[in-house]
Structures are given as structure tokens and as C-alpha cells.
């Protein structure tokens, strides 16, 4: 019964979105107040019904109701409760329902926090939001009904892919979806502004917090996925340029660009058409990402839902939403007159360079992701585009980007003095170069690219700190008061850039100075890697709730210090039967020691395949991203945005 209520609530939400996307829009164009008044209550109603619907599905998973086809396919009674709950969004139908749930949540938030927006604009934003929702409701109800029953129903479910049974992955999709779908708000704002034909500083001030919020979630979500791949897949890598990773990375790159171009709109009233375009593209990439993952058009390790029929539906939907908004852009963007002019050397120019590099980077990633498909469609040839292409192309875009990042915040608006800028920053530049050379030699040399990345990371680190010190006049009296008085948006900026600098140093360390060993080991064997002496002590059998495992014990010590114990596991899950590895990681500030145990040798039972990795500065990567997200959150708490979001901007 509860399941049917969920299904019924979903149908009601679908109908509400139909109403919300049509009547208020018509009303706002014709100036009919009563029709416009429908928008907000409809948005709340949609949220209520989708919440009921999602809760009903979650209930079915919690009580293991195997008469629901979706539950029978993806759950199992033996599964721990956390994974029963996370299984709700760990499958195709459930994840689309979850997408829709978050979309309606954002719709309700916009309806609430945007109350003070100009009436006709507010209504248009809500109508566009509902239009996007309508597509997803129809997709769910017509092609992927999560509430479908089966009869006769099985006594036990099929279980969930054991790789997905992990706390990191339980929270990775929700965060990622909060990010993906958050960009829908930016999209609705952009399309609303195109219909209204007006973009100004106030618009940018409304859009920025939503972009920032989505960006924070997206950053955290992508990184959580990367972290999961790092410790769960046990390959010692953290980024694989897999189509599905790229699908989440493209909107991130564009959202990062949008975040910066919106500043220019807000402060200088220019770059308007470009910013609108970025807002449309950012969400288009979100939708494209969903399409790529859900349609199976690109094969990847993530392909857990492949179905061409669904693919055609999503493609049609993409065509309407993206094609429609880009057509609207083509027809209406000329209405957006640029405001302030700026010189070639200015903060604006720096932000334009930032935008160009980020956009080209997004295009490069898109090209690399879709090229095999294009090639196959045109010539029938099968090829793959791998990490070497991405690392090369992407790396060469990121180095200039980071160099500009160091300059940008120290550059003044409108017109900056290049010589002055150079003379202020030359010591910072020299210092980062010297430090990079010193570290490079201390690490025993290596590839020249490693040194370049090190220098680039240090440059960003030092220039960000320098800019902050200059801004608060650190060495003059009253510095403490000035530090505390800084607007949160600029504190956020410093943290954001600092975080990236730390992450870049981490990437350089783990990518260029990492070590890897594959050994056949017996009890008592020793291996040394990354300055650690690792001893294989013994193995134990372990029985988990729905798996059995071999747990090995290793002890690792550095320079004869106190030995640390690592316990990697080789698990075999029962439902479905599948072996997985649980790596043991010893994380230290200077690097990670990573141990994976593989199969026992069939012929000699005391010999085990063991892989060991040393990943220098790996925690810097995760820590750096955490600092970036922190920066985003600090910036989000800025008073200006709260005022802007709550009260609307007073011009």
C-alpha cells in the first residue's frame, strides 16, 4: 500500500509540475497575477509529493519488500541497514527518483528564498525549474518506474554490487546530485533572465550563491568518488578519466568558470551574455552527464544501467531543454548590453582568461570523452581516448590557469599597472621557484614535469598568501582587526585558491614520486617501499555480515621506528558472489602507504600476491579539496549573499 502511495504521489507531483511550468509562465508574460500566484504553492506541493514518493521507496528498501521489482533486484535481507537505505539511490530507477527529489527540493528553496525577487522573474524561474522537473517525472513514470511490482515475488533479493557497499559510496551520489541539480537553479535563472531580457548586478548577486552551493556539493561529491576509487578499487590511482568521472568533471569546470564570470557581472556589469551561456552550459553538462551514465551510450566501469530506449528518451529531453535554451540564447542574447569597459591588463581580463582556459578545458574533456563515440558513429572504428591524452592536454591548460590565478587577486579592476604588478610579485615568483628547486632536489630529482607542477603549486600557495597579507596589511598596526573585518567572500576566495594550491602539490607528489611494487610474499617476508620496511606477518579468516574474507596483517616501520599495523582484506561477497579487495592505508602527512592483498597461490598456500604503493602527499590532495570546499562555504555565508537571497538587491 505504501508503495502504491509513493507511485501515486509521483503522478501528482508530475501533474503539479505541468501546471507550474505552464500557467504561471503564461501569467507572467500576460501580467496575470492570479496565474503567477500558482507558482510558489505548486513548487512546495511538488516537493511534498516527491518527498512522500521517495520516502515510500526508501521504506520498501528498509523493510526489504521484494514484491517491488526494484528492491528485489538491488537489495538483500542480509545487507546492513545503511546499505539498504543507500541502495534506494544505488540503482537506475531510484537514482533518477532521487535526482527528481533534489530538483524539487531546490525548486522549493528557490520558491522560499526568492520571494523578494521581482515578481515576473521569480515566476519564470520557478516555471523553468518545473519544466525541467516535468521531463524527469515523465522519464520515471514512462520508462523507469521504481515502484513496479512483480509477481510471484522472490523470497530473497539479488543484492547490490559489493563494490558499491561502502560508506564513501553511500554518500557520493547524494553529494554529486546536490551539485548536478543545484546547477538547475542557475540554469532557470539564466533562462528566466533571457525571457525577461534583463541581466544586471542584482541578477549576478542572486545567481552567485546558488552556483556556489552547487559548486561546493559538486566538488565534495567528485572528490568523494575519487577517494572511493582510491581506497576501494585498490589500483592506487585516484583519477582515471573514465567517461563517468569526466561527466561529473565537465559541469565542475564550467561551474567554476561561471562562479568567476558572475563576479564580473556583479562588480562591473559586463560579460553578461557569456555568463548566461556558461549557466546554460553548466547545467547542460549535468544533463549530459546523466545521459552518459544512464543510457549506456559510452561503455565504462560505471555502466550499471544500460538501456537504449531510456537513452532515446533522455536524448529527446536533452534536445528540448538544451537545444531550446541555446536557441533562446541565440535569439535573445543581443538584448544584453555590455556595461563597463576594461583594459587588457585588469582584473576583468584575468577573469576572462580564467574563463577561457576553464571552458577550453571542459571542451577538451568533452572531446576526449565523446570522440570514440563520434568516430564509431562516423566510421565504425573503435578507439579509446586514454589518460595520456587528457593528462597532456589538460595539464597544458591548467599550468597557465594557475599562473593567472596567482596574479588575478592582486590585479585591480578596470585597468592595472603591469610593471607595478610585476615588481610586487617578482619576489613571490622567485621564492616559489627556489623552493620548488630545493624540494625537487631533496626528493631526489625526477621528471621535469614534476618540478614544474611543484613550482606552479608553490606559486599559487605563496601568491595567495601574499595577496592576503597585502590586503590586510599584515605588518602594520591594527592588522588583527583588519583580518577579522575581511568580507567573507574574500576570505572564501583565499581559502579556495589556497586549497587548490595544496591539492596541486598533492597531485604532483602522488603522481610523480609514487612507488609501486608487486610481490609474491610468504609469512615473514619483508619489502621496503617509500622508506617503509613492510613485513607480512600472517593471515586470518574473517566472516562479515554478507561476506567472508581473508584478513592479512602487515607491520610497517620507518627508520626503525615503532611498527604500524596494516590489515588489508580480500573479501568474497555472497550476494552476488564477487571478490573485492579492501586496501589498508597508512595515511601520514608526508604520504600514504597502501597495501592490497590478492589471491593466494593455488599450488602453495603460504604464498600471496601483494601489491604495495607509496603515494607521497596523497592526503594533501584530499585536504586541499576540503579547504576549497571550506572556502566555498565561507563565501556562501557572506552577508551580501544572504541579503541578496533573502531580500533581493536594492539598487
Amino acid at each position: 500500500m505504501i508503495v502504491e502511495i509513493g507511485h501515486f504521489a509521483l503522478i501528482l507531483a508530475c501533474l503539479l509540475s505541468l501546471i507550474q511550468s505552464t500557467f504561471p509562465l503564461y501569467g507572467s508574460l500576460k501580467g496575470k497575477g492570479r496565474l503567477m500566484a500558482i507558482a510558489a504553492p505548486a513548487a512546495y506541493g511538488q516537493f511534498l509529493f516527491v518527498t512522500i514518493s521517495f520516502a515510500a521507496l526508501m521504506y520498501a528498501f528498509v523493510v526489504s519488500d521484494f514484491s517491488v521489482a526494484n528492491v528485489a533486484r538491488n537489495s538483500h535481507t542480509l545487507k546492513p541497514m545503511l546499505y539498504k537505505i543507500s541502495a534506494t539511490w544505488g540503482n537506475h530507477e531510484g537514482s533518477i527518483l532521487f535526482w527528481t527529489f533534489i530538483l524539487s527540493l531546490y525548486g522549493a528553496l528557490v520558491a522560499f528564498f526568492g520571494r523578494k525577487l521581482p515578481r515576473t522573474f521569480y515566476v519564470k524561474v520557478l516555471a523553468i525549474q518545473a519544466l525541467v522537473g516535468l521531463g524527469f517525472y515523465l522519464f520515471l513514470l514512462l520508462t523507469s518506474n521504481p515502484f513496479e511490482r512483480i509477481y510471484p515475488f522472490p523470497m530473497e533479493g539479488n543484492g547490490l554490487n559489493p563494490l558499491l557497499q561502502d560508506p564513501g559510496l553511500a554518500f557520493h551520489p547524494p553529494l554529486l546530485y546536490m551539485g548536478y541539480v543545484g546547477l538547475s537553479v542557475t540554469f532557470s535563472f539564466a533562462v528566466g533572465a533571457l525571457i525577461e531580457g534583463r541581466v544586471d548586478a542584482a541578477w549576478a548577486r542572486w545567481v552567485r550563491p546558488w552556483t556556489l552551493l552547487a559548486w561546493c556539493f559538486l566538488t565534495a561529491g567528485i572528490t568523494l568518488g575519487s577517494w572511493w576509487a582510491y581506497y576501494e578499487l585498490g589500483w592506487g590511482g585516484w583519477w582515471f578519466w573514465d567517461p563517468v568521472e569526466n561527466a561529473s568533471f565537465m559541469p565542475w569546470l564550467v561551474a567554476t568558470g561561471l562562479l568567476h564570470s558572475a563576479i564580473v557581472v556583479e562588480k562591473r556589469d559586463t560579460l553578461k551574455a557569456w555568463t548566461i551561456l556558461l549557466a546554460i552550459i553548466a547545467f547542460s553538462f549535468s544533463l549530459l552527464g546523466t545521459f552518459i551514465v544512464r543510457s549506456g551510450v559510452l561503455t565504462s566501469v560505471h555502466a550499471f544501467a544500460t538501456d537504449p530506449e531510456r537513452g532515446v528518451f533522455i536524448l529527446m529531453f536533452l534536445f528540448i531543454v538544451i537545444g531550446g535554451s541555446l536557441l533562446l540564447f541565440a535569439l535573445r542574447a543581443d538584448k544584453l548590453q555590455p556595461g563597463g569597459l576594461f583594459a587588457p591588463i585588469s582584473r576583468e581580463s584575468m577573469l576572462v582568461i580564467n574563463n577561457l582556459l576553464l571552458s577550453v578545458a571542459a571542451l577538451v574533456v568533452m572531446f576526449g570523452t565523446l570522440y570514440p563515440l563520434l568516430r564509431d558513429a562516423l566510421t565504425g572504428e573503435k578507439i579509446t581516448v586514454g589518460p595520456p591524452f587528457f593528462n597532456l592536454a589538460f595539464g597544458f591548460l591548467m599550468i597557465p590557469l594557475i599562473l593567472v590565478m596567482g596574479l588575478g587577486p592582486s590585479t585591480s579592476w578596470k585597468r592595472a599597472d603591469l610593471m607595478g604588478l610585476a615588481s610586487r610579485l617578482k619576489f613571490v615568483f622567485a621564492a616559489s621557484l627556489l623552493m620548488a628547486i630545493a624540494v625537487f632536489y631533496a626528493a631526489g630529482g625526477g621528471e621535469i614535469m614534476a618540478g614544474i607542477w611543484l613550482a606552479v603549486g608553490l606559486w599559487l600557495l605563496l601568491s595567495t598568501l601574499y595577496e592576503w597579507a597585502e590586503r590586510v596589511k599584515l605588518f602594520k598596526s591594527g592588522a588583527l582587526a583588519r583580518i577579522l573585518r575581511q568580507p567573507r567572500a574574500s576570505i572564501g576566495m583565499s581559502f579556495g585558491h589556497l586549497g587548490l594550491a595544496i591539492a596541486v602539490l598533492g597531485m604532483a607528489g602522488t603522481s610523480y614520486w609514487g612507488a609501486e611494487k608487486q610481490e609474491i610474499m610468504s609469512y615473514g617476508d619483508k619489502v621496503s617501499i617509500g622508506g617503509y620496511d613492510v613485513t607480512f606477518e600472517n593471515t586470518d579468516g574473517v566472516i562479515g555480515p554478507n561476506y567472508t574474507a581473508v584478513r592479512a596483517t602487515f607491520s610497517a616501520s620507518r627508520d626503525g621506528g615503532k611498527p604500524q599495523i596494516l590489515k588489508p582484506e580480500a573479501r568474497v561477497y555472497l550476494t552476488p558472489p564477487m571478490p573485492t579487495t579492501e586496501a589498508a592505508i597508512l595515511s601520514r602527512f608526508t604520504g600514504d602507504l597502501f597495501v592490497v592483498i590478492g589471491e593466494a597461490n593455488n599450488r602453495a598456500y603460504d604464498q600471496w600476491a601483494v601489491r604495495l604503493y607509496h603515494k607521497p602527499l596523497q592526503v594533501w590532495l584530499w585536504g586541499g579539496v576540503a579547504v576549497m570546499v571550506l572556502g566555498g562555504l565561507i563565501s556562501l555565508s557572506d552577508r551580501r549573499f544572504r541579503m541578496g537571497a533573502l531580500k533581493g538587491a536594492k539598487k
Partner: protein
Amino acid sequence: MSLNRFIPLAVFCVIAIALYVGLSLNPSNIPSELINDPTPEFSLPVVGGEEVSFSSIDLAAEDGVVIVNFFASWCAPCYVEHPFLMKLKERGYKIYGVAYKDKARDTNRFIAQQGNPYYKIAADEDGRVAIDWGVYGVPETYFIKNGIIRYKHASPILEMEFEDKIVPILEGVDE
């Protein structure tokens, strides 16, 4: 109105068309480099034995259509395919079997249970020959006419596909 503003739309349309075409592609349709070439050189022992029973010379000497089927007793889709292979044998096709990474005992049991559609069964226990042929999974079937590979099929052969796609290729005029 400037035409530049239409560039994003145009780019999107190209991508959308490519995605549409991409959706209709069959992921199991993977071309072989060996089409229209003679078979790779190889020699394999008979299942459970040492003597060479099957080699590229056998295939080169064959006139007309011969089928080479890579299979394994541990491969579930092979069980699905098996009845159709039996049918092909009844229709007079000569099928060579290659047991891929399979133990002789298991292969023999598989044949004893399921019937033997093969003219000869060779054992490729370490999978080396399969690599030369470009086999990346089982079952995989090669259709050879007058010593030249004409068609490769990955995954179990369905009767409909055989009639519609493979027979016309095999009956086609020699180039």
C-alpha cells in the same frame, strides 16, 4: 542578431546527432582486423592429448565454408549457443571447436552432456592461439570460406542473425 550566437546551438546539434547514432550502435558489434585475411598460423593439440590435431594448414586446405567456434565449459552463454551449433551441424556445416582456457576433463564432460557439434575439438589451454585470433571472450565464432575469414561473431549466435547477416556474406560472390 549576430550569427556567432548560434555557434553553441550548432555545436550542440552535432553532438546530439552523434549521440543519437551512438545509441543505435550495437556494443557487441566489434570489427575484427582479420576479416578478409587468411587465418592466423597456429597448431593445437586435441583435447586431453599431446598430438597436434588442428592447425592453420587444415583450414587452408578446406574448400567452402568452415566454422571455427571458441567455447569453454565454464562459459554460460556457450550453453545457450550449443543447441544452435548442433542444428548447424545437422545442416551440414563443418565446425571446428577450440576449447578456450578449459581443462580437458571439463570439456569432455561438457560435450558428453550437451552433444558434439564439432568435427574436431582442439584445446587452447593457455589461450595463446585465441590471442592471435583476436578473441576477447567466449563464445566467439569465425566463418571461413576458402581459407579466408569472412565474418566474426561475438556472443552466442542467434538463428535470426545467422540467416539475415551471416548467410548472405557466406553465399556472396568471391571477390
